[in-house]
């Protein structure tokens, strides 16, 4: 059963039960009050007969004549009946052996009257009886006159009270039906209205489950459902972010695998292709020389790739062996090998090294410097210039490699640290690069909690800064 149906049904049931019970109670109470009042009236009327009779008892004693008694009692009764001339008043006076002295009953007195048993003088008993279609209130008392018992029965027709009650019930049923109908309609609308936001959330949740992660619930209310919707939306956006992140990671991984396959298979294709060509065709000197040359070069490329890949793999999740050092000294140590790679393009290598003490793993820093200079050489033209600078900038220790080469287009800058990413594939390939250098630099920088900043202008050159933060110096102080 749906929630709105539950709300609707339960509240309707509750309403019907309470409304009916309350109404019935009111009607019944009203009825019993009126009945009570009627009884009181009847009893007091009976008592007034009684007192009239009692008043004349002394006189009757004097005369002591049954006939006279009868006449007097009849007179009193007639007088009484005349006084209470309203509808449905009956009086019966009976003497000994149930001999009726007076009666204006228009029905037969019931023979079985249990209220008479053990009835004492000066006691009034009453009972309700249904006779025919009427309901009658019998009040009876016994009075002794001259040692004879007379029974006075005053009967009041209370049928109107019951008719009234039936009428009230009839009226109530009509009211009840109308009220319940009205309530059902109102409740239907209310429960529908209250649960509509839930419906909407259900629909949105379904859409999200089907993969539309950008779907959100549009709800403006401030009640609990509104809060739920807000939380739901927050949850949905967290999920969406996570999914996007996962997808991004996944595609980065996929790209890495694609690239690695490509980088491995390209040299292999050449090597196998040339070897097979040389193996299966007639010897030809030009082809032979070209072939072995390609095999050698591609083999070297594979070697370089495998060692860089190993570097990259070994760098992940590794704890560097930090030792106090100075960037200036590290660069000075590498000077000759840096000049060697620069000399291939007759590039002028400029070293501007200020004192910059830091705590680092020297061999890794050397890899960073080598890769950055190597990239700078690849980006530079013949006879270009490359500057390597080290310095303290405030609390941070900065390594800077600047070239005046081709520069990196803005759209590539975000990606250059991704493994195998090559801004210019053809050039990188011709330079025997696999696109791993900067990834390795980034991994090393991460191990040292250093940041890498890239400033590049197309056609004017690139400057890469590695900023080693202060915390390394703290380690250094504690280490020295």
């Amino acid at each position: 059963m749906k929630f709105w149906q539950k709300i609707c049904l339960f509240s309707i049931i509750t309403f019907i039960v309470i409304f009916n019970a309350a109404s019935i109670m009111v009607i019944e109470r009203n009825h019993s009050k009126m009945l009570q009042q009627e009884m009181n009236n009847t009893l007091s009327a009976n008592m007034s007969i009684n007192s009239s009779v009692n008043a004349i008892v002394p006189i009757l004693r004097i005369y002591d004549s049954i006939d006279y008694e009868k006449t007097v009692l009849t007179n009193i009764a007639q007088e009484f009946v005349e006084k209470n001339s309203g509808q449905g008043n009956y009086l019966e006076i009976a003497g000994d052996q149930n001999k009726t002295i007076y009666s204006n009953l228009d029905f037969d007195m019931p023979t079985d009257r249990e209220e008479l048993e053990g009835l004492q003088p000066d006691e009034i008993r009453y009972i309700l009886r249904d006779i025919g279609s009427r309901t009658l209130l019998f009040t009876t008392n016994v009075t002794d006159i001259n040692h004879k018992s007379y029974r006075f029965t005053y009967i009041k027709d209370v049928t109107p009270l019951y008719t009234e009650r039936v009428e009230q019930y009839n009226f109530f049923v009509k009211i009840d039906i109308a009220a319940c109908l009205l309530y059902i309609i109102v409740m239907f609308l209310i429960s529908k209205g209250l649960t509509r936001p839930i419906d909407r959330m259900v629909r949105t949740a379904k859409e999200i489950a089907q993969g539309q992660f950008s779907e959100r619930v549009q709800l403006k209310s401030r009640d609990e459902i509104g809060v739920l919707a807000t939380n739901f939306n927050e949850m949905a956006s967290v999920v969406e972010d996570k999914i996007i992140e996962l997808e991004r990671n996944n595609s980065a991984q996929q790209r890495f695998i694609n690239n690695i396959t490509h980088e491995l298979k390209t040299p292999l294709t050449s090597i196998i292709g040339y070897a097979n060509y040389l193996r299966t065709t007639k010897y030809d000197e030009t082809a032979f020389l070209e072939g072995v040359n390609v095999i050698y070069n591609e083999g070297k490329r594979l070697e370089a790739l495998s060692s860089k890949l190993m570097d990259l793999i070994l760098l992940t999740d590794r704890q560097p062996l930090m030792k106090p050092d100075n960037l200036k000294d590290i660069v000075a140590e590498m000077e000759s090998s840096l000049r060697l790679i620069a000399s291939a393009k007759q590039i002028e290598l400029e070293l501007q090294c200020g004192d910059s003490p830091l705590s680092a793993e020297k061999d890794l820093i050397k890899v960073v410097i080598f890769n950055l200079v190597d990239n700078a050489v690849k980006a530079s033209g013949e006879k270009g210039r490359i500057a390597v600078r080290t310095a303290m900038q405030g609390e941070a220790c900065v390594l800077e490699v600047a070239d005046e080469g081709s520069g990196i287009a803005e759209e590539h800058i975000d990606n250059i640290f991704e493994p195998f990413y090559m801004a210019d594939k053809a050039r990188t390939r011709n330079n025997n690069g696999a696109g791993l250098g900067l990834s390795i630099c980034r991994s090393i920088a991460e191990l040292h909690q250093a940041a890498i900043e890239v400033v590049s202008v197309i056609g004017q050159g690139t400057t890469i800064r590695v900023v080693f933060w202060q915390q390394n110096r703290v380690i250094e102080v504690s280490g020295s």
Partner: protein
Amino acid sequence: MNKRILIVEDDTSISNIIKMNLTIVGYETVQAHDGIEALETIRSGKFDLILLDVMIPRMDGFELMEKIRPLEIPVIFLTARESVFDKVSGLKLGADDYMVKPFEAIELLARIETVLRRYGKEESVISFHDIQVYLDKREVTVRGAVAELTPKEHDLLVALLKNKNIALSREQFIEKVWGGDFYGETRTVDMHIKSLRKKLGLQDHIKTIYKIGYRLED
């Protein structure tokens, strides 16, 4: 006239080795090293087939494929990627075949031949010196006179001609001529080669290559 094949491949060595292998069996080749260059070359010349690397600079193979599809030139993709997705998307784009690097030269030649045959671009007559092979009729003539060859000898000759100047191993001959489910000895190949040499006078042209197999030389 020789078939013209365009090689679109950014890696110079690979491009060259493909060119060498195709040239040696008698195809005419043109090389392009990136997508844009390839597109220009395709628009300016007539090609019977394109060998297309997927990962090429400036415009990748799939993109280029979409652009040249209306020209209805058969295309064989060359790629290092092995994923099913790539294969499916390559073939969906209308490529005729798909080769994963690294590949063997004779496999490439076989695929090229298959694709060309599918497009009805295959030569129906192969000439070699004074020998004519009519593929449709399965007839071989030497200086105009019909040579009596057994079916296997005929197929062996065709395999030699189609891989001219390239040495094939006995196993490769068996696969091409007898099919993959042949379990006989490799000596069968030697006997058929001997008989071919004798019947067609190819003693000087069918060379025995040490440790490999046989090669038909010009």
